[in-house]
């Protein structure tokens, strides 16, 4: 069962929000509703599930409702309609006491602008969640110190937030969230206020931390690169609606609509695409037991100087060159067994990164073969497929 299930979630800001709900269900747009009623649609029918231990990224432009969604999860914002199931239990039906308990022990939040208490020391900030739970002074101090050590901030316990740099402040924010050992971390644009370099470091550290902690993380960002780097799965939002949910690859290679396509366009695709994403079907192959004449004919037909050779079960045997084929025909050989070169052809696995393929394909004049673990030929990569992958498709755009 999923850790969190969000079903039919709506949030409409303004007085008498039910009115807006009706208009939405009648198919009015966010703008229409705002013009007619002055109500702001924050979330319009969001549906998603988050699995235990995964990093689920919610991405979208500013104003698309990301913060509102994440605030509905711990009810800092009261949804207008919908269900949020935490381990099967509807958060929206919890009474005040249960809600406090959930906030204290199940979910912790990390904020974009850190939201550290300026009058408290770093240690006291980190202790906050335990303090409101009424945890013993000695125990909470120990746990807070552990959390600070986890984010590399030993020695800063007695400092105040305004003595720290942005990156360090957010480490405190993360330590504060980790100190009460929550099951779910809610991170609302946690790194968006940081400088690019520090931001990248923090992303790496979060990935490292997550490898140890295995928390369920809901991470919000408006930055696609960040989403791709951190997210096991990504949800794209627009105008409060869920546009697409999928892995980084699914979203990149198969954008659900024009909005996603535009979003995806700016990304440095070489970092996320893999060999499997850009390989093409080999134009032609020959079986190792087939004759050199047939192979030569195929080469001539496609204007190529070499041809991939397969064995039984489409396993890759190697490659033969036109020169060798001609010689073999002269010698009167009936199969390709003697002339196939096993090691001339570069083999990569399907999840090989495109970035590294660039060099491989540029160096060799023969295609790179993509083979499965069992050695089966899945496709080939030629120079043109790498280039096409690096340049985002602009075919359907008027420049």
């Amino acid at each position, binding site marked *: 069962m999923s850790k969190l299930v969000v079903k039919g979630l709506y949030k409409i800001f303004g007085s008498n929000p039910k009115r807006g709900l009706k208009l939405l269900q009648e198919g009015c747009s966010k703008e229409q509703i705002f013009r007619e009623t002055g109500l702001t649609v924050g979330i319009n029918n969001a549906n998603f599930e988050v699995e235990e231990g995964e990093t689920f990224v919610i991405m979208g432009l500013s104003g698309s409702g990301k913060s509102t969604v994440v605030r509905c999860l711990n009810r*800092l914002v009261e949804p207008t309609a919908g269900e949020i199931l935490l381990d099967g239990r509807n958060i929206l039906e919890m009474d005040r006491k249960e809600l*406090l308990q959930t906030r204290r*022990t199940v979910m912790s*939040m990390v904020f974009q*602008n850190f*939201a550290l*208490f300026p009058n408290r020391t770093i240690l006291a900030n980190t202790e906050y969640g335990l303090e*409101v739970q009424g945890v013993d002074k000695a125990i909470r101090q120990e746990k807070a110190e552990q959390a600070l050590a986890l984010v590399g901030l030993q020695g800063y316990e007695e400092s105040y937030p305004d003595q720290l740099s942005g990156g360090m402040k957010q480490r405190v924010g993360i330590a504060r969230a980790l100190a009460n050992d929550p099951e779910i971390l809610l991170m609302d644009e946690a790194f968006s206020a940081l400088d690019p370099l520090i931001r990248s470091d923090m992303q790496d550290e979060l990935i490292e931390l997550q490898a140890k902690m295995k928390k369920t993380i809901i991470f919000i960002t408006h930055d696609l690169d960040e989403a791709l780097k951190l997210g096991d799965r990504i949800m794209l939002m627009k105008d409060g609606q869920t546009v697409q949910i999928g892995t980084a690859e699914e979203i990149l290679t198969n954008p659900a609509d024009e909005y996603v396509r535009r979003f995806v366009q700016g990304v440095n695709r070489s970092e996320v695409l893999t060999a499997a994403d850009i390989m093409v079907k080999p134009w032609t192959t020959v079986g190792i037991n087939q004759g050199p004449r047939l192979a030569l004919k195929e080469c001539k037909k496609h204007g190529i100087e070499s041809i991939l050779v397969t064995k039984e079960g489409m396993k890759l045997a190697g490659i033969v060159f036109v020169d060798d084929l001609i010689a073999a025909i002269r010698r009167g050989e009936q199969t390709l067994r003697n002339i196939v070169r096993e090691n001339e052809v570069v083999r990569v696995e399907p999840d090989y990164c495109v970035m590294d393929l660039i060099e491989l394909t540029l160096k060799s004049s023969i295609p790179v073969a993509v083979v499965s673990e069992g050695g089966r030929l899945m496709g080939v990569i030629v120079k043109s497929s790498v280039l096409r992958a690096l340049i985002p498709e602009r075919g359907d755009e008027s420049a």
Partner: protein
Amino acid sequence: MKVPRLPVGGFFEILVDFVRVTFALPFDWIKVILLWVNEQLVFLLELPPFWLVAIMVAVIAYFLAGKRVALFTLAGLLFIAAIDLWPETIITLSLVIEATLLALLIGIPTGILAAKSDILDRLLHPVLDFMQTMPAFVYLIPAIMIFRMGAVPAVISTVIFAMPPTIRLTNLAIRQVPKELVEAGEAFGSNWFQMLLKVELPQALPTIMAGVNQCIMLSLSMVVIASMIGAGGLGSVVLNGLSNLDVGLGFEGGIAVVIIAIILDRLTQGTRKEKEIAH
């Protein structure tokens, strides 16, 4: 054209009369309690000799506001003793302390509630405007009618006069606490009181202290005016000077009031500045 005379004054007369008669018993209790508190304060202030009080206040001033304020405090209080106004000063201070404490005791919680409830905020707004703009003397009249002459009506009218800025600034201070800090407090599961004590009040403290400062200053000015209804203290010195056309006496009383005002102001502002530096 002659506009018919509206009986507004008559309305207030009836209102005050009604209140006086209906709440006679609780008012008696209030009177007894306030009088008792005032007597204790006077007793405490009269207990040590004037020079010891001057030194103690100067030491407090040193820690709250620094060396210069401490020196001024010592010199100012000794000066007051030297012009023979120490007993009057004690009476004035006792009234200021009592009225300020009472105004803060009511004003700060009211301000907190107003910050948490938009309805209360909207209801209070015109009431506070009314209380603040009404000439201070006017409060003396119903206060005398209900509590007769003396320290008690002085304290009551002073509380009414000095409380509005405390309510206003407390309300404002809490509403100005950054939303993200409140969100953080909430996200970690703070309940109502934890939110108030651990998140909101610490952030709001500098502004609330500004309200306390204003409250004290207004109390002092009102206590001086309240000498007209027999509260005694430095105000009566000025009043005597006025009725006997004794310029010297009038100025002596006036200078003593100014000295007390400066000391109280620096003491409370000093705490504010220090808190601001602390974080």
